[in-house]
């Protein structure tokens, strides 16, 4: 709440006819996390679309609601901004004054000269011509964007830009710079088109309705099992800072948990200032034992990405454990710890798992029973009272035998056995999922679908 008050107060000390200033003010008062800025920017563009407004006061009456909460609340859409802009250009198709060649030329010129105004104009033309927008359809605009971009031959534009910028010399650096420059201009074009489409959608359907369609979860809240390719890339980007933060937190927690033995030298030194009386006892930093971890991950089809993220996270903070061993399986089991040993980039090791791990023994369908049995036969001796065993998978056993007694035996040997299931809890035990047969022998069975849940679990573990 106090953020809303702040935003409202801030509005009184600035020039509210300055859109950029309003935006900066709202973001400074409402957003408190750098990761949330993209969400804020989208929300701002939706609720404060760049259009002519008859009554500027109406725009700010509900100004302090335009944060990500407002998307959920669905309020904060000023009424003064609808229908006041220029003609809509919906319907798409042939009502553009330019031919396809002229448009392509216009785009190319704008990109080549790095001229933002020309770029915006070209983007408007492109959307009018290609997007084929239909008034009233409840969509977020991704489809229109796709349609526009498909018609624009961006690869061709990119190649032409690189050609224009290239110096002709045989110089790798110059060539690479030309390519990156072209790439960044193409990205600017995409952003301009996306913004244009969004503005038209706001005009068409109003900010509230659109806000519902463009709402996106934060990367750490994405469902790992059902992420598409873009979201997967987002997840990968989010994982690194996440694991770094986790490592810092764990290291601190460990250092501050208990005190070590009395540090005699430090205490005597300190006592000099109190006339030789040791008032202040000093302690050595504690050296608590770190836990050992064994990860046994199903890497078949649907749960593969979840297994990858977990392995990445565990190995990224492997310094917080005294030992990490990783096993992967489908219907056969293989140890992959060695892949992580000679590289300082866990991502590289995870990428190699698919190619190098020998996990298919028979038909390539998950067989938890066989995999666990094989683990028990070969590696049970490695499990001791300091070891936490992590089993990752959806327990969809393709109607093979469960061999739950192996988990019971592991639990007897280990400090704890945890099962992380990336499926929503409501799907458990439906179809061939036999999680309930293993559950009695695990210390905890945890639904773990997002990076946030995963991070919380691993944080507790260490």
């Amino acid at each position, binding site marked *: 709440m106090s*953020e809303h008050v702040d935003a409202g107060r801030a509005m009184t000390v600035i020039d509210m006819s300055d859109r950029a200033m309003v935006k*900066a003010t709202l973001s400074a008062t409402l957003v408190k996390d750098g990761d949330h800025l993209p969400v804020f920017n989208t929300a701002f563009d939706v609720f404060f679309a760049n259009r002519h407004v008859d009554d500027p006061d109406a725009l700010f009456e509900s100004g302090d609601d335009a944060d990500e909460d407002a998307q959920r609340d669905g309020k904060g859409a000023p009424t003064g901004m609808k229908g006041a802009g220029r003609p809509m250009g919906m319907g798409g198709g042939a009502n553009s004054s330019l031919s396809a060649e002229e448009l392509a030329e216009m785009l190319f010129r704008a990109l080549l000269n790095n001229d933002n105004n020309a770029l915006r104009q070209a983007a408007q033309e492109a959307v009018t011509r290609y997007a084929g927008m239909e008034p009233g359809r409840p969509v977020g605009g991704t489809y229109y964007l796709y349609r526009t971009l498909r018609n624009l031959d961006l690869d061709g534009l990119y190649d032409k830009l690189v050609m224009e910028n290239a110096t002709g010399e045989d110089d790798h*650096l110059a060539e690479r*710079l030309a390519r990156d420059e072209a790439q960044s201009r193409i990205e600017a074009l995409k952003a301009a088109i996306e913004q244009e489409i969004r503005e038209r959608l706001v005009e068409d359907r109003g900010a509230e309705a659109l806000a519902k369609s463009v709402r996106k979860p934060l990367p750490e809240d994405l469902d790992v099992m059902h992420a598409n390719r873009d979201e997967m890339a987002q997840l990968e980007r989010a994982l690194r800072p996440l694991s770094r933060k986790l490592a810092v937190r764990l290291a601190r927690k460990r250092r501050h948990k208990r005190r070590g033995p009395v540090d005699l030298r430090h205490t005597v030194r300190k006592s000099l200032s109190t006339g030789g009386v040791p008032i202040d006892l000093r302690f050595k930093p504690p050296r608590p034992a770190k836990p050992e971890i064994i990860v046994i991950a199903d890497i078949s089809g649907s749960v593969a990405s979840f297994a990858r993220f977990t392995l990445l996270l565990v190995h990224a903070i492997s310094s917080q454990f005294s030992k990490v061993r990783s096993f992967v399986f489908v219907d056969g089991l293989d140890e992959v710890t060695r892949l992580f040993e000679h590289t300082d980039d866990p991502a590289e090791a995870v990428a190699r798992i698919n190619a190098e791990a020998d996990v298919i023994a028979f038909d390539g369908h998950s067989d938890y029973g066989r995999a666990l049995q094989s683990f028990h036969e070969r590696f049970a001796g490695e499990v001791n009272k300091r070891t936490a065993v992590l089993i990752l998978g959806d327990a969809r056993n393709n109607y093979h035998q469960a061999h739950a007694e192996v988990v019971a035996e592991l639990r007897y040997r280990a400090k704890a056995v945890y099962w992380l299931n990336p499926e929503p809890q409501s799907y458990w035990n439906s179809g061939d999922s036999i999680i309930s047969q293993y559950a009695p022998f695990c210390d905890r069975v945890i639904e773990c679908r997002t990076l946030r849940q995963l991070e919380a679990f691993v944080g507790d573990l260490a």
Partner: protein
Amino acid sequence: MSAIDPRKELADRLGLDEVPPPRFTSTTDVVSRLRENDYLSDESIASVTFLADRLAKPVLVEGPAGTGKTALAKAVADATGARLIRLQCYEGLDESKALYEWNYRKQLLRIQAGRPDDSTAEDWHALEEDIFAEEFLLTRPLLEAIRAKEPVVLLIDEIDRVELETEALLLEILSEYQVSIPELGTVRATQIPMVFLTSNNTRELSEALKRRCLYLYVGYPDVERERDIIISRVPGISTTLAEQIARVVRSLRTLDLKKAPSVSETLDWARTLVVLGREEIGDEDAAATLHILLKYQADIEKATKELLGKGKSLA
């Protein structure tokens, strides 16, 4: 809508005789005065600085290392002619290092010096009042900023390094601009200090802290701004070279590196190239000086391979 003046409200609460005039007249004023002090701001930096001054609120500046967060506080101090008081945070920072401490050595001396052989209860009471006087108080940066008579800019650097519990020390200062000392009472600010907190985001800061601050995210600058920064900070550099440097650095930042080059490393690289007398960067120069931008061997190898198309590093 009645006019709210947060500065006046705060001045009233602090019991100041007059409201200190705002430091900046507009965001353009911020931009131009920071530029005079060799700090190139962008729109969001300038707006938030302006707002912080007008609203008398602290600013929490977050972003990757080496993007000019600390430099911003310094530039604001220079631009407004204020004294910069800096509190460098570290793990284990406590009250006695951040706020104030009683000078117990001096207190001990005072007790020993004033101990007559037949001391009574009254004597002790007088002595007790005496040894908890200002004379025996050691001010640390936070208290110093509050007690300063002249305008100050308080920089609390790398706040994410202190423990969550220590953050609470700051809350009173950040929202009320005052410090409570049990033995002395409450010390209120006699002016309105500008406060900047920086964080490299190695951990989540508490909600209580975030709520009291304006938020500013300073990311890596875009090519144009970075070029301008290079030109303003590196004397004798040509525009072409600066532009080229800015582009190389942008390309490097798109690679998946352990540590992306910061603005300060970019400046170091630019200075090196100027000293070497280069007008533009070729493959050889880049390979030979890449270690100034990148601090990990793995990063250098990766960059050499990606940007220069070579399998092995020459550096």
